[in-house]
């Protein structure tokens, strides 16, 4: 039984690889966009300009209140209606995950910036640094350590949440797995494989995050 299972996986490898590419593609793009977006969000909210802060807060709360799957549906089914845009599922997923990821990453960046003693900002200002220099040379470098472990956690969640893309019709690794099951009925094997796949994609990141946290918290 086991050998025929592995054989099946071996035979299906090319299709599964395609699916894996899709799934990881969504995750990777979302991670990159979230990181960039999150940095911008974190710095912007740290500047203390009322209306920007308020706007970003509304954005955050919207993405926190409404579950990601609902957002996926809204974008996938709603955009064609509201704006006449028909975005393929893959890019819909990337878009939604990026927006959600950016808000979560942004909060991490913001928290890290806020945890830096106020005196650092004042010392930087007192030697005449401008805002850009203040953030670039003094605040963000110090925030980097504090924000990396939580940021990695957000990225892990992004990888897990990318699994929802199958529900808006994206032909990702889950869909391909389900197609294989339709032909072969090997549900335990395939879902087991998917289970292991996601675990292998996420666990190393979690482990690294924990190691970094332990090492840097003792500095």
């Amino acid at each position, binding site marked *: 039984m086991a050998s025929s299972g592995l054989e099946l996986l071996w035979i299906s490898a090319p299709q599964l690889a395609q699916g894996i590419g899709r799934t990881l593609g969504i995750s990777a793009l979302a991670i990159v966009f979230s990181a960039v977006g999150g940095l911008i969000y974190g710095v912007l909210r740290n500047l203390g300009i009322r209306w920007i802060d308020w706007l970003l807060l509304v954005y955050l709360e919207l993405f926190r209140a409404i579950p990601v799957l609902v957002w996926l549906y809204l974008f996938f089914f709603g955009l064609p209606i509201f704006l006449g845009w028909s975005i393929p599922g893959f890019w819909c997923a990337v878009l939604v995950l990026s927006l959600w990821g950016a808000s979560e990453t942004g909060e991490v960046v913001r928290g890290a910036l806020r945890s830096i003693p106020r005196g650092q900002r004042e010392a930087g200002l007192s030697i005449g640094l401008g805002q850009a220099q203040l953030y670039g040379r003094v605040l963000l470098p110090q925030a980097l350590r504090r924000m990396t472990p939580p940021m990695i956690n957000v990225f892990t969640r992004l990888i*897990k*949440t990318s699994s929802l893309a199958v529900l808006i019709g994206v032909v990702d690794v889950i869909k391909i797995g389900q197609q294989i099951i339709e032909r072969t009925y090997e*549900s335990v094997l395939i879902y087991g494989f998917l289970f292991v796949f996601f675990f292998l994609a996420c666990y190393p990141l979690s482990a690294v995050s924990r190691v970094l946290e332990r090492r840097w918290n003792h500095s």
Partner: protein
Amino acid sequence: MEFDVAFALSTLPAFITAVGVTLQVGLIAIATSLCVALINAAIAAFQIRPLQPVVRAYVELARNTPLLIQLFFIYFALPALGVKVSGFASAIIAMTFMGGAYLTEILRAGIEAVPRSQIESGLSIGLSRWQLLRHVVLPQAGILSLPALFANFVFLLKETTVVSAVAVPEILYTTKSYIALYYKTYEMLAVMTGLCVLLFVPLSLLLRVVERRLQHGQFGS
């Protein structure tokens, strides 16, 4: 763009039921997850050697895999092994599997967050290990964990949308069905969004209030 108010209103009864299902699934999952977490916390606190690695493995597996896969495995794969489960049951089992792991970590963090000085004070007045746990560590760990626990409860409620994938008639599934039946996409999306906002925004705000209150109590200022 026309908004068919009459139609939207006519679907409300079905959606109210759907909200009921959401709450059902969510609340049961919260309760069962909490039980799992308490058992795991007990294993850690009493240092039951043989079971500790099992708990660790469980937590890592459940936290590093998506709920959807856990759900699909239980709903689609288990029948092949002879275990038939309904959509509702798989939803509960999967959410307990995931939720239990998250809550276990929170309780563990809560126990570790109790300051060492508290334990030393307890030991200095001669408390036994069990008394220390019962009177000093667990009460404080509980309070320290509350904000994170509530946050996870809200998270679990939101994750119920995922179980729509196995035909559990909660909010999202109901929306999908109605869109498929009547093609009133705009109206259904609006109702769905409105319900989600009504349901989850107050919870978010409540969570903030709870967090602030508990922090005050903790540091006595």
